[in-house]
């Protein structure tokens, strides 16, 4: 691991630690790497251990300090009051915006599903019409054999293409939906970590 990699990992590990605290910590390690001899960087990184441990220690210290503090200081109470008032006044605007946001997201999801379903309908119907053509061609054999063979060939090709496309589409949509749900989950987890 390089010093740049260490700092990047540290930045990630410090998620959820108060901004100022995290900033100070990153500055400390940045300074350390800048001061250390270029030849020493590698051994320094090795000595530092995992960035996660530093972050965990800071978090634990902050929690202990938090317990020592008085539960609610007057300044805190006032700030909370302001926050509540502000959110009440913002509600007439914020609430509709939030609802609209959810509606748009929901509509996007529904339209995505609709597109997928219609694509399935197309591929399945190609396969089905191919099969139908094969069946029809059987009736044409007694009348005119070359025509029957042509129909049968076309039908088989259509049926095969339809099947391949259906399977492909199935895999593609599974991939899309899985990616989508993973993205939503990740966002929720990171939001929870920040809270």
């Amino acid at each position, binding site marked *: 691991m390089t010093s740049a990699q260490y700092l990047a990992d540290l930045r990630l590990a410090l998620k959820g630690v108060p901004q100022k605290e995290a900033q100070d910590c990153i*500055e400390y390690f940045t*300074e350390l790497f800048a001061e250390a001899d270029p030849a020493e960087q590698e051994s320094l990184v090795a000595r530092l*251990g995992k960035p996660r441990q530093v972050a965990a220690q*800071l978090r634990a*210290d902050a929690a202990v300090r938090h317990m020592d503090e008085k539960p609610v200081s007057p300044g805190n109470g006032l700030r909370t009051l302001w926050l509540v008032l502000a959110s009440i006044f913002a509600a007439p605007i914020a609430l509709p915006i939030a609802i609209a946001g959810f509606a748009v997201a929901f509509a996007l999801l529904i339209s995505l599903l609709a597109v997928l379903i219609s694509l399935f309908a197309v591929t399945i119907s190609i396969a089905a019409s191919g099969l139908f053509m094969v069946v029809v061609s059987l009736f044409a054999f007694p009348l005119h054999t070359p025509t029957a063979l042509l129909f049968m060939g076309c039908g088989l090709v259509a049926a095969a293409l339809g099947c391949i496309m259906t399977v492909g589409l199935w895999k593609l949509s599974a991939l899309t939906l899985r990616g989508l749900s993973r993205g939503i989950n990740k966002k929720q987890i990171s939001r929870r970590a920040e809270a």
Partner: protein
Amino acid sequence: MNFQLGSPLLDGCVLAVLGHGDTYGYVLTQQIRQAVDISESTLYPVLRRLQKDGYLQVYDQSYQGRNRRYYTITDQGKAHFTAIADAWKRYCRNVDTIMFQGGNHD
């Protein structure tokens, strides 16, 4: 052989170095590392805690286009260091008495 280093002892080492003059992070950590086997990442929370408790203060000074954060000991820190140093002296004497004389024989 490694002896376990409690946080009062680490506090004492940091404050002792700063008692001889202000210094910046790298020099401070390397000085401590000369005496005890400890990494810079373990020292960071120690420095943070000493600062929060009012035993040391920091100030920034630019050096070759980047920043150096200097640490300086406060009066409160000096008093804290004296208390730790006294306790350490007593502790050392007691351990020495056991370790080298097998206890008090008078």
